[in-house]
């Protein structure tokens, strides 16, 4: 019988020697070129990191190819980042350029450092999730193709750009605090299969699961009913009860939120906020989504001051200007009507025309 509760492997055993020897003694770092960082320790040792974009969803061939590269140039060490990037850890400076050359030849994108877009954090989508409103990997691929130059260059954007994608309103991943969040959304109430509810669901749990109290018992059918005008399609009931189908190919789609961040640098972390309530699910390449994202990125790139992240830019010019300059229409959908709506209302006459 296998051992249980072993815990994760010991990270210490998988650190490259230059890290073991300089652990906690790093002095500074610098960006040598897009995707290439140099960390220097108090002892004067240096570590070179080459950052590569990855589709996150990979097969064994790709992983083994990465291992081959790490063996060839990195004494067999590499790491991954929280944004699904791969980092090849080079301790011998002489290996940097040959590695970059081989990556270029293989078409593996090097970048994502400094004032660039990093990889898109994302969820599973149609490939493996049971409540998605859209695919995740496909949209990410389409958007990263479109923004490719902003990954491989670090001098085209005013500041770093963090994009995230979640495939439904649960907002898995850090999408709620991203410069740009791409979000799958449902737009219609669950369709109840009354013949199944009493068999597969615990009715009081289903009722309690609804954040807006839209679900009520339906004793006649030994089921539940939904007050449709109270439902905002979060799908929490479906998570509790498979008999309340929330996916709706006719109406599911994409929303875009902007201006969030997690770093405390300069300003406090903040949420992404709704820019575009709905874009259609036009697989396989979601042209409306890639165009919308590009428009926002380029408007920001053109208008922001150096160092200004998306949210800082919007905060300086005001949301009224954001909608003007991007040409995105403002609608009733943008106005919050959930629990903390009141603090988002404009309680001052200080606004721009």
């Amino acid at each position, binding site marked *: 019988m296998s051992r249980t509760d072993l815990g994760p492997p010991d990270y210490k055993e998988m650190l490259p020697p230059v890290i073991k020897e300089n652990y*906690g003694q790093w002095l500074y770092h610098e960006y040598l070129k897009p995707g290439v960082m140099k960390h220097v320790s108090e002892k004067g040792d240096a570590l070179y990191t080459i950052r590569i974009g990855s589709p996150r969803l990979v097969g064994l061939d790709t992983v083994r190819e990465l291992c081959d590269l790490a063996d060839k140039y990195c004494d067999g060490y590499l790491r991954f980042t929280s944004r699904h990037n791969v980092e090849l850890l080079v301790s011998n400076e002489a290996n940097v350029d040959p590695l970059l050359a081989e990556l270029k030849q293989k078409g593996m994108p090097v970048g994502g450092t400094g004032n660039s877009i990093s990889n898109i954090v994302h969820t599973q989508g149609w490939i493996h999730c049971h409540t998605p409103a859209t695919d995740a990997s496909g949209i990410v691929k389409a958007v990263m193709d479109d923004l490719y130059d902003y990954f491989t260059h670090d001098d085209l954007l005013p500041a770093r750009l963090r994009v995230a994608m979640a495939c439904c309103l649960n907002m898995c991943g850090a999408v709620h605090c991203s410069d740009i969040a791409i979000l799958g959304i449902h737009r219609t109430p669950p369709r109840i299969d009354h013949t199944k509810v009493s068999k597969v669901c615990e009715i009081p749990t289903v009722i309690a699961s609804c954040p807006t109290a839209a679900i009520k018992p339906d004793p006649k059918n030994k089921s539940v009913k939904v007050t449709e005008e109270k439902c905002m399609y979060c799908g929490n009931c479906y998570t509790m009860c498979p008999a309340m189908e929330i996916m709706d190919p006719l109406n599911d789609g994409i929303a875009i939120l902007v201006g969030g961040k997690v770093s405390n*640098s*300069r300003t406090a972390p903040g949420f992404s906020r709704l820019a575009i309530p709905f874009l259609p699910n036009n697989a396989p390449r979601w042209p409306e989504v890639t165009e919308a994202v590009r428009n926002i990125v380029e408007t920001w790139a053109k208008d922001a001051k150096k160092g200004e992240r998306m949210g800082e830019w919007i905060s300086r010019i005001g949301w009224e200007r954001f909608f003007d300059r991007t040409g995105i229409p403002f609608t009733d959908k943008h106005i919050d009507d959930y629990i903390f709506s009141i603090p988002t209302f404009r309680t001052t006459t200080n606004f721009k025309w």
Partner: protein
Amino acid sequence: MTERKTPMLDELEKGPWPSFVTDLKRAAEKNDSVKDLIAQLEQSYEEKKGHWKHGGIVGVRGYGAGVIGRYSDEPEKYPNIAEFHTLRINSPAGWFYDTKTLRNVCDMWEEHGSGLLNLHGTTGDIILLGTKTNELQPTFDAFSDAGFDLGGSGSGLRSPSACCGPARCEWACYDTLDVCDNLTHEYQDEMHRPMWPYKFKFKFSGCPNDCVASIARSDLSVIGTWRDTLRINQEEIKNYANSGMDIQGRVCEKCPTKALTFNSETKELFVKAEDCTRCMHCINVLPKAVRPGKEKGATLMIGGKSTILRSAFLSWVIVPFMPLEAPYTELKDLIARIWEWWDEHGKTRERIGELIYRLGMGNFLRAVDLPPVPQMVKEPRANPYIFWQADEVIKADEATK
């Protein structure tokens, strides 16, 4: 099986960004389940609809977590993904690997599953994507023999994660990797046998840049900070200034509390320590010249989560400064008190932040024995609806004694 056409997915092999479709197709050459997966995904693309059934309960012996059941809703059409479960493998802290280990992962997964994986899932686990029910235990056994274990899922502790910390970052104010590893080992039971109201996440960031999004994505956010003053290397300031850096404009004027002064004559930078809020901006812009202070530790924050159910919360301060040295007794004691209170009072699917929202910070602080400090709030309450405790008011019958 006849070769099925995938015109829509084929479109996603175009363009410069690495294509997951290409990876799927390469994997499909060796594995029939991936062939069905591709075909079902093509159908999803055509129909704009997912084709996975709501999960059933599957798992490995002795565990209540770490495996997510997944079944195709058209098993007759796609028999090789009729069962296509996920295993979450707890990654090493900081996601550092040697290739020997990683190749071993590949070999094991080639033997037992689809050969598809996420490096990594958003929570930080290695996600092994797709295997059959009868392969779950063998997969686990193989990984366990190789020194791996399952990650968390369901209403328990989720796999903690950490930034690269002191392994590669000069800004790490505590050993994120060690704390992450230590606590993950300490709380194996809480990870593997879910028994709480809902999930609970730890994320460990070494500094306020918060590279693992701890403040947004963990119920208990541990973010490095320092108690003393920025360290400024005036020689390097001069170098920056001489190389053309606009220190006044790019650093001083963007300092949120105007705590920095640049003397353009002497090319020296000064900080008014009491005004500094340690936001990292000057350090980020001048990494060779400005460093965190020496008295290091972490700020503990609570409640971070995504939108479901009662809105997204960012974590808020509950301990402005805690030194973090192994064996992390003070931290663990606090965690125990927090979990006890949550376990006792939380409703089903109520995150700790939502529970505090419902019952109030006063009740929370009293329960976990933390002193209220102004660092916990952006601003004090605007309403006068204070709950007075029994020992703070005079009872009528006492007064007449």
